[in-house]
């Protein structure tokens, strides 16, 4: 299995560990990643706030770079914001020939062109659909038995494009988490909004939304995320939220590939666990992580086997939003 890889700016900065863990996990799962050469910012949510064409061009540039590589593979994106931006750009360009022409005109400045044929895939989509829980279960070296994990999806990998999961009641993480031996927290906050950039622009509102998620994860040991923005909001503002509301305790927040990586016995250091802002002592103890984060102290004796009778594949992708019909006149 092979994918083109677009890490995005956050994964070079605040979400370095997401990048590290993704690479380490996929390597362990024998998936080859080819990073798109000379990639630049996708435009994030800011570019559309300035100009539509600029947004298309910034994202389009990266898509064009990906298309230019010789490798015929899907473009894997771990950052939900980048994923949505790139995905939306592809969809827009496919649907709007004028936008396609304009974008190509801009990209021509850099000698690039785009066809819109490339498929943009979220990391969670690849993990849940292409690899599936069985790929994890078969390689578990360190069972996370008794650990309760709250799967937190955030918005932009689910909406507005319901590609691989139910945008309102998502479940794609659950099989993966169970494959590690961990339990899945039953909650309804998985697809709720964390407040996104409100943390910068409307801090009160941002804290309220993130606070609600943290509060609902009370009974979980870990919150698993698949988006740098969500991760930062949940781990970086935990203390401020607790101070403000007068309740709430420190909660371990991990990127999903980190959690899966631990179960596969990948050394914490390779998963960038030291870079996380919220990893509780209890959690460290649970996974028997030693101080220098390099070794797992003991291998768990149990091996988890694939449940019998289940095929590879996982859930059917949820069908795309269908086009609306109108009666013949």
């Amino acid at each position: 299995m092979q994918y083109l890889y677009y890490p995005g700016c956050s994964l070079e900065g605040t979400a370095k560990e997401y990048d590290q863990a993704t690479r380490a996990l996929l390597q362990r799962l024998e998936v080859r990643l080819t990073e798109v050469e000379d990639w630049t910012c996708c435009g994030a949510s800011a570019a559309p706030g300035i100009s539509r064409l600029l947004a298309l061009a910034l994202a389009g540039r990266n898509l064009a770079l990906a298309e230019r590589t010789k490798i015929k593979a899907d473009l894997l994106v771990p950052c939900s914001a980048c994923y949505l931006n790139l995905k939306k750009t592809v969809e827009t360009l496919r649907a709007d020939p004028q936008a396609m022409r304009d974008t190509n005109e801009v990209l021509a400045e850099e000698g690039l062109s785009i066809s819109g044929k490339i498929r943009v895939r979220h990391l969670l989509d690849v993990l849940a659909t292409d690899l599936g829980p069985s790929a994890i279960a078969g390689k578990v070296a360190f069972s996370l038995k008794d650990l309760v994990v709250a799967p937190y999806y955030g918005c932009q990998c689910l909406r507005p494009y319901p590609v691989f999961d139910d945008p309102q009641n998502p479940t794609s993480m659950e099989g993966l988490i169970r494959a590690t031996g961990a339990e899945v927290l039953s909650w309804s906050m998985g697809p709720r909004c964390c407040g996104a950039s409100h943390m910068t622009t409307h801090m009160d509102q941002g804290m309220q939304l993130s606070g609600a998620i943290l509060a609902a994860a009370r009974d979980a040991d870990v919150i698993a995320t698949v988006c740098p923005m969500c991760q930062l909001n949940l781990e970086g503002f935990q203390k401020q939220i607790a101070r403000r509301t007068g309740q709430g305790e420190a909660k371990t927040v991990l990127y999903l590939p980190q959690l899966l990586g631990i179960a596969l016995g990948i050394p914490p250091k390779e998963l960038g666990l030291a870079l996380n802002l919220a990893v509780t002592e209890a959690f460290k103890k649970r996974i028997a992580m030693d101080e220098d984060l390099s070794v797992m102290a003991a291998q768990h004796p149990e091996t988890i086997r694939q449940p019998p009778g289940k095929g590879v594949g996982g859930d059917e992708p949820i069908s795309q939003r269908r086009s609306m019909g109108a009666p013949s006149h």
Partner: protein
Amino acid sequence: MLRENYHAVIIGAGIAGIRSALDLAETGSDVLLIDRAAHPGGLLSRLDAQFPTDGCGMCKMLPLLERDSAEATCLRKGFFHERIDFLPATELSHLEGGPGRFAVRLKQTLQGVDPQLCIGCGACETVCPVDMPDDFNSGLSRSKAIHRVVPHAVVGAYVIDAAACTRCGACVPICPTGAIDLAFDRRKEFSILVVDDELSVRDSLKEWLLNEGFMNVQTAESGAEALTLLEQSDVKLLLIDVKMPGMDGVDLLKQAKADHPDRVAVMMTAYATVDTAVEAMKSGALDYLIKPFDPQAMLAMVNRVFQATVSVQERQVTAGAVILAGGMTLFDPGEGVNPYGYGTHPHVITSLAFERVLSGCGPSQGRLVRPADGKPLQRIAWLQCVGSRDCQISADFCSRICCMISLKEAVLAKNKSNDAVETTIFYTDMRTFGKSFEPYRRQAEEERGVNLVRARVHSVTASPESGDPLLRYAGLDGRMHEAEVDLVVLAAGFRPSPETEALAELTQAERNAWGFFQPQPFAAACSSAEGIYLAGACTEPVEINAALIQASAAALEAGRTLRRSGSQLALAEGPAAKGVAPDAPPRILAAICTCHGCLSETRNTEKLISGLTRDPAVVQVLFVDQLCGADGWGPLEAAIKDVAPNRLLVAACHPLRHSTHRRALSRRTGLPENLMTIVDMKIEPTEPQADTTARSLRTALGEHVLSASLQMGVAFLKHTDPTAPEREQVQRKALVIGGGTAGMHAALAIADMGYGVDLVEKENRLGGNLAWLHHTLEGHAVKPLLDQLDDRVIQHPKITLHLEHEVVNAVGRVGDFRTTVQNAQGRTEILRHGVTILATGGLEAETTAYGYGTHRAIVTQQALERQIGSGEADAAAWDVVAMIQCVGSREPSRDYCSRVCCPTAIKHALYLKEKNPRVQIYILYRDVMMTGFSESYYTEARRAGVVFIPYRPQQLPGVETSPDGIVTLSVRDPIAEVDLKIEANLLVLATGVVPRLPAKLAAFYGATLDSGGFFQEADSKWRPVDGLREGVFACGLALAPQTITEAAAAGQAAAQRALRILCHESLSAGHPTAAVRHSLCVLCQRCIDACPYGARSVDLEQRRLVVDPAMCQGCGACAAVCLNGAAILNHHGAGQMLAMIDAAVE
């Protein structure tokens, strides 16, 4: 028993199918009615009550004339008509030929229980181990794998759910009549070949299959080996691995199918080669399984193939026409986003399921309790537009009937709880678009306290405290609201029924964007395919009366095709049976069913014989085994020919089930049907004996009671008057009053069937409102329709046109009316006719509201349409156009929605937008009544930038005019919370429709008007174009506000109803009918008031009371109120009843 040649085959036995079938049968056609379900009645079989009566009236569809041709019983129990054969669980599998000569191939799935043998005793149900959700009750109750589909159905009562059945076999020995066949032997023989290069796959598959009872399984490790085996044995099913060395699976498939195309093959594939497997389906593979697969899934598929092979019975018939009446199916709210937690939240159900909650045979026997936990219901919320009016799920249409269903359900819930239950309906537009809908809504809201909240609920979650459903919605006040209720009812919309796609392919009938069948412009009952007609909700979700009107129109079109193709309709005049002289002494043959020997074992038959023959009227007593089956009716027929009785007494179980037999027996022996009676023996199974699992049968009646029942039967027969009912001659000609859309359609329909028509029109031209209508919402030009109708009417040899004539007087009754018409010069003429169709039309209502008449920029929608038609409307000159809806409508003074105004306003708005995209259009409305597929034009109008502003009748928009030609409207926008001033170049008022049916004219024919001045139907739902007086019909705007297409359909429906009468030389209502003993009658006339059918009157000349035999329905109300003993009901006379009572207490 079934015929081979039919005039028509009707696919779908819901109410529309039944209506079409009855209409055709009543005009002399032989009809085959099929349904994929095991019972007739369709969706309506699950709805106990309909508004506005809040009761059921399905039986009102039954014939009122020649009633003896059908069984006058509850249609929920069964459907019997001498010209209609019903095949349950049957689908169309092939169709060729054309109008007049269709070859129809049908596929009937046997349900495991022989309906001829099943007596509905229920013994099987007690031993069946499979507990599954009951489909009929929407899964709110449990059933067994072998179960009754419809709790109250009499025929074909039990079926086996093949998918759920475990084939444990427990039910087979316990069935006392041996009606159950699980096909074990055929399963053993069923030949399966597994082809896979992996030994482990071959072995495990074989083992699983053997365990499932498939004993004839062979395996092959390569394509070549498989081909050898195929030559040697008759393999029915192949399971083929896609990827094999040498010949691969697809090659094998092709070769295996080459000489045996009916061989079934299923491909087995790894995930990687799914594409190949999909490809293989093009080469004839049925399906594919992805390895590693679940044994259960594999076995389910094999079972399915097996069932399809063994339990399907093919049948070929011919038909002159085909009517598609497959109806619609409920949207599954669990589909897609499912924000309301359907299927996950226990207290969220569909409106159809709530119908079951209300039903006496529902999960809680009609008690108003929550299905999941039995908690008494105190707060119920209905959520409208679930699966409708939702572009996200390709449903840019309105399902039309959900608003009224919810209102009705809320009222029924109120009824059940003595108004204690709190009911709230969350809606977007309350679409009360029919004649009686608005008053019903008003009553529900104002008198019954049903809360109507204009809001779309966003989500349903469980309350953290109680677990009860918690609704979240944004109120009109701009605030978020939460409401906790006990039960959420989702007013789920509708989708085409599942077989629509296949039917479209087989019949070549086109479908629309949403998968419903597409009718032809102005011809709701015509499909795009010749000879294929459309009835009911298969074209659009519709309410009962629209479905029935369209069904009658479809019957008319089918009849027309039959006539055109030279089909002879075989209508027998009068009863086939020869009469019995009134004074002939009764000779009764008593035939008693021994029902699989049960009677002879447990009864002293000698005693029964001596008891019966003590009365010399009983000439012979005959014991016959299985009178319910062909085995029993043979000996009985022979005995009748031998003994020549003039009365027949039968004792058997379930009298209704024998109605078809009885009719056939009457035809073959000449013994009139009304001189046969069937006594219910109430057969039930015994408890199994200790040494066996088998049950036998016994009658539930004690010896004395059985004897008394038989004696009652004898008493009944002895006193039955053998005189045949009176018949009245028919003037086989029609009078149609009004030459608009509906009138012309009605006239042409009747004339095309060969009967003369007098068409009377007040004006000097035909066409009515067609003259000024320019185009329809759908964009069809109106002029060509008018020209075509005009030509056809004028040139039709059977139509006599009376232009500029008015009806000045009329007398008579069904079959013989005399109408005096007068022309402008005052010359009169008397027309004689057997039926009358009132198609006097309607007009745009007049108004003085909003300054109408004071300013030339204030016009009505009709005026705008005229301007558009004449080219006067200069859209380019207008910057702003405003429209006000519901002017003078939906108010207590005119309490109905005119239904055409919203489509007209939007039609005009779209037209103006097209001509001048810059024109701003504001439509001020109360509820946007864009029902059905017209909803998409509402969306289109919104998309085109038309601004819709809601107003409340309590706060009407203000209008001011200025001399510069500008009309200023002031209205408050409730959402934006701003007062708007709209300066418009044109203000268009939608004043609605008023009927033009003078009460005096209606009274000539015994018809009455409703509160809106429209023709009062006999029943707004079930007899939508019939007057209370038989022989008088209405259509078009005189009947109700209608579109052109609806008026055309109503015209045809009225014609079809009229043809039932015209096709007879003489008329009879059938048995029983009322009569008058003049010697006793003192003319107190209580019976006239009591007669609900208007069949009784005083002949003033003769000073005596007369009964119209064609109109009397034999209800007996007259006999009940008559104190003189003068009003009597033939066949239920006082002497007869007294004799039966004496026999009963003997």
